[in-house]
């Protein structure tokens, strides 16, 4: 039995094409729409042919949308900035908190250890609305409402457990032997952690960073309920193109394209590690 018969290859290519079509055609279509006017988008039947325009992007960058009902102020760039601030800081904080904890769970057997790990992971799965219900009131009292700090804290619910889980799994895959050897050489615990364990866990950390960044980026309801307009991420901001004088599909499409760019860049950069890093602790050391 040969691995790749020519028939096998044809089937494989055919299947991959179908997969690619299903997952990427809608994105391709959105990409095209971002270069069309609303009138071209709203044609019956829809058509592939159009005169490309950069108008939608100009609106997003200039922050001004001229409609027949006047000039609308578009805060998309600010929203994009907020998304970057919120997602980046949340993930950064989660990494600072999560990597040492993940290391502790992976390397030490300690009383209540598994219970703490379980509690932390279960936060990921509590219904977010349940927490939001009273949280707005507490934030109000604590002065955390309408602040990045408050939001970044709540975002830990999304990012921290994910990082903990993936990175812990990866630490468990790395043999302790190298660390032992390094410590026998007279190096302290922290140095070992910093110089040996973390660099070895890079793929796991990269994969965890990317996935938690994506989940934080896509969040919608936290900022909507807990923050004022100047702190809203793109997910809420893009709804501003649903205007009284029509839905500006071209601009929504352009905002999707722009909002995907940072994440895609991150993903391509981390491409080597992404799959490798998600071993979840099942690979022997």
């Amino acid at each position, binding site marked *: 039995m040969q691995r790749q018969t020519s028939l096998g290859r044809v089937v494989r290519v055919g299947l991959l094409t179908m*997969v690619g079509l299903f997952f990427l055609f*809608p994105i391709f279509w959105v990409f095209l729409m971002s270069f069309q006017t609303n009138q071209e*988008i709203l044609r019956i039947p829809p058509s592939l042919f159009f005169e490309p325009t950069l108008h939608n992007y100009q609106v997003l960058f200039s922050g001004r949308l001229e409609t027949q009902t006047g000039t609308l102020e578009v805060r998309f760039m600010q929203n994009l900035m907020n998304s970057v601030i919120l997602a980046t800081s949340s993930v950064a904080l989660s990494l600072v908190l999560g990597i040492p*904890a993940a290391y*502790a769970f992976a390397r030490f057997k300690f009383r209540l250890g598994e219970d703490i790990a379980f509690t932390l992971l279960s936060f990921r*799965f509590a219904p977010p609305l349940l927490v939001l*219900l009273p949280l707005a009131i507490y934030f109000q009292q604590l002065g955390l409402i309408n602040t990045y700090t408050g939001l970044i804290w709540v975002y*830990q619910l999304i990012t921290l457990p994910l990082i903990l889980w993936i990175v812990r799994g990866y630490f468990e895959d790395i043999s302790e032997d190298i660390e032992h050897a390094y410590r026998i050489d007279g190096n302290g615990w922290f140095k070992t952690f910093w110089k040996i364990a973390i660099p070895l866990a890079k793929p796991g950390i990269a994969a965890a960073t990317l996935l938690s960044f994506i989940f934080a980026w896509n969040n919608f309801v936290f900022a909507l309920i807990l923050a004022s307009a100047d702190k809203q991420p793109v997910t809420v901001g893009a709804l501003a193109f649903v205007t009284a004088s029509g839905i500006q599909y071209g601009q929504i*499409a352009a905002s999707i394209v722009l909002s995907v760019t940072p994440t895609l860049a991150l993903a391509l950069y981390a491409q080597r590690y992404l799959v490798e890093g998600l071993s979840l602790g099942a690979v022997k050391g």
Partner: protein
Amino acid sequence: MATEAMTGAATNGAKRPLMRKVLPYLLSLPALLVCIGILIPFGTAAWYSMQRYNLAFPMTRGFIWFDNYIMLFQDPSFWHTVRVSLLYTFFTVGVQLLLGLGIALLLQRRTLFNNIMSILLLLPLMIAPAIASLMWRLMTNPNFGVLSYIVGLFGFTDFRWASAPSTALFTVVMIDTWVYTPFMMVLLLAGLRALPRQPFEAAELDGVPQSFVFFRITLPMLTPYIITAALFRMLESIQQFDIIYAMTQGGPGNTLMVFQVTAYLERYQYTNVGRSAAILMVLWVITFILSNIFIKQWLRLREKARGVA
């Protein structure tokens, strides 16, 4: 930060045994402390769920023990919500598992093309479902929608997607599949690539048919990954909100009234805090049980891997 304090302590050889005991707590405590704050609003929400508490009727607010729950359990629409949520979870996870596994198998070999492809396939995950749904609504519009046009070419000229009771579930499951299959795929791909080589090499030498290899070697060895990925998605799927709310707000009729959509409407449109909290508590209990299974399963998977080693 705690880590700085530890640097000094760790180098101090005399304290090592004590250090060994305290260190893991020092390392994990900051993370726990940051998360533990969330328990306070959680407790408050549980408290709300035992009150008659509608913001529009401030006078009638009062503690009623479990009456909200009893009312829920007597309400057929609540059981409908449970049923729809479970159906939705079942279909999304089932379809995504099969599809994700299939794609992972296609991309199994470590080539640059496959790596790039796996990143590109992650694109749907990078578009927030709340915005992606706006686009799906346009693409499934019977007049301007490209998907309606395409299925029209295949003879489905009157396909109504999310707007007809018979196809609404199909449509949101499809969108969920579009968004989250990549996540499933990447977890399973990681699993596939981490499998030990020897059994496969041996099978190839012996000329064992590929279907046999798949069902007798690949699948059993991959099972722990499959269960982990499926449980993870299950926990998210049963809490689905963004896609369904943006597509149909739970309609048509009550077709898609899943847990979080029902609770959101109760809270932010009907201002019925008590009832909303009770619905979410029920959801929380379900997810708690599921995540318990999830974590036990994951620990077992780890032990098993250790055992093999």
